[in-house]
């Protein structure tokens, strides 16, 4: 049945919206501070320390050296205090803290403790400590990532928007190539125009969601990052495509010039968003040595929402493109202007 695919995209997006708002975040550790008496306190997010009192174990790790913390004191569901019996000479100054809890599983905070005044000897090895392995907490939840925390939910909006933009830009590219193959204005020109218009809209939405995300994770609305700069310039290039179209009156000339420019814009997109970020330092997850999000969805919780989000945005964008095409066709037919019929 014609058009039965159209509601699928929006329905998927509604599912994604519900899951994004409703799925809880897994527990994690936020920070470790020094408290009175030289003890340390870790603060957690989504943790249940009070529910696991008596079974909490805290360890400190530096490289292969592990030591058990002492006098573990649960102060609240999210605050845990402990004492660290560091020897006079330590193998290194920086120590990770990990907390084992029967309720929350194993929680790690890297570089939690820094001993600025300590005497170090890298050859020093601490006695081996038996560290139990615990299974991760039950239940469906998004993984906790330091610094990203709750904003991981933006993953379901920001990244799929860009995926959809790539698809629409690719469609515009193919349509432009087909337009160049014929001397007169063809339906491909309208396809390219509609796809590029949606690509610009998706690009702007991607930039806005990315900027909001940057504000929370990096503390600023914009940073000098290759991925961000590439995204902005690519969106500007597709905007330039529409400016070019508006500058030309003759339809055949407009179609050809726009198609030529679209080829350049797509090559620019590939260079700026797919090639250059892989070779430069970047704050973006997955680039410049930063871990990508795919290393954190071992329980597939993100996949259950992310992949439907990608599909939902692509289908919705395709529906939007089709609406634009049909609007243009109806306008042309209603004005009794000759126009090549849509395939």
């Amino acid at each position, binding site marked *: 049945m014609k058009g039965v695919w159209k509601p699928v995209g929006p329905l998927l997006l509604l599912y994604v919206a519900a899951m994004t708002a*409703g799925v809880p975040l897994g527990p994690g550790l936020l920070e470790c501070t020094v408290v009175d008496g030289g003890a340390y306190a870790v603060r957690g997010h989504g943790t249940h320390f009070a529910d696991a009192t008596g079974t909490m174990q805290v360890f400190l790790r530096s490289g292969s050296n592990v030591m058990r913390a002492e006098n573990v004191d649960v102060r609240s569901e999210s605050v845990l205090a402990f004492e660290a019996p560091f020897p006079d000479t330590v193998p290194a100054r920086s120590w990770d803290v990990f907390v084992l809890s029967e309720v929350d599983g194993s929680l790690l905070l890297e570089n939690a403790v820094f001993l600025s005044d300590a005497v170090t000897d890298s050859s020093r090895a601490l006695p081996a400590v038996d560290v139990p392995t615990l299974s991760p907490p039950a239940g469906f939840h998004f993984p906790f990532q330091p610094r990203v925390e709750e904003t991981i939910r933006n993953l379901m909006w920001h990244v799929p928007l860009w995926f959809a933009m790539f698809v629409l830009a690719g469609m515009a590219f193919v349509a432009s190539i087909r337009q160049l193959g014929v001397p007169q204005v063809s339906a491909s020109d309208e396809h390219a125009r509609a796809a590029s218009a949606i690509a610009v809209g998706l690009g702007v939405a991607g930039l806005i969601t990315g900027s909001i995300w940057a504000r929370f994770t990096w503390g600023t609305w914009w940073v000098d990052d290759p991925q961000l700069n590439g995204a902005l310039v690519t969106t500007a290039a597709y905007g330039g495509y529409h400016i070019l179209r508006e500058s030309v009156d003759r339809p055949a000339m407009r179609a050809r010039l726009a198609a030529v420019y679209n080829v350049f814009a797509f090559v620019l997109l590939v260079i700026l968003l797919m090639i250059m970020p892989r070779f430069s330092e970047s704050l973006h997850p997955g680039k410049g040595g930063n871990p990508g999000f795919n290393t954190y969805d071992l329980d597939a919780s993100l996949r259950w929402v992310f992949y439907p989000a990608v599909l939902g945005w692509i289908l919705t964008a395709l529906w939007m493109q089709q609406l634009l095409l049909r609007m243009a066709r109806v306008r042309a037919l209603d004005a009794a202007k000759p126009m090549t019929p849509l395939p």
Partner: protein
Amino acid sequence: MNLLGFLSESVFFGSGKAAVVLAVAGVVLVGFLVWMLWAERRLSRLERKINERDPRS
């Protein structure tokens, strides 16, 4: 803790603002989808009229 609980703790962006942000985003998204549905129906109606007027188009 899920996002709804997170919001109620007023940790995110001060009290109530996050709820406003989510509400606005929700309205924009739902409104946009409703507009697309309306556009789809209207276009179908117009195309039917044009086809009735001129079956060749």
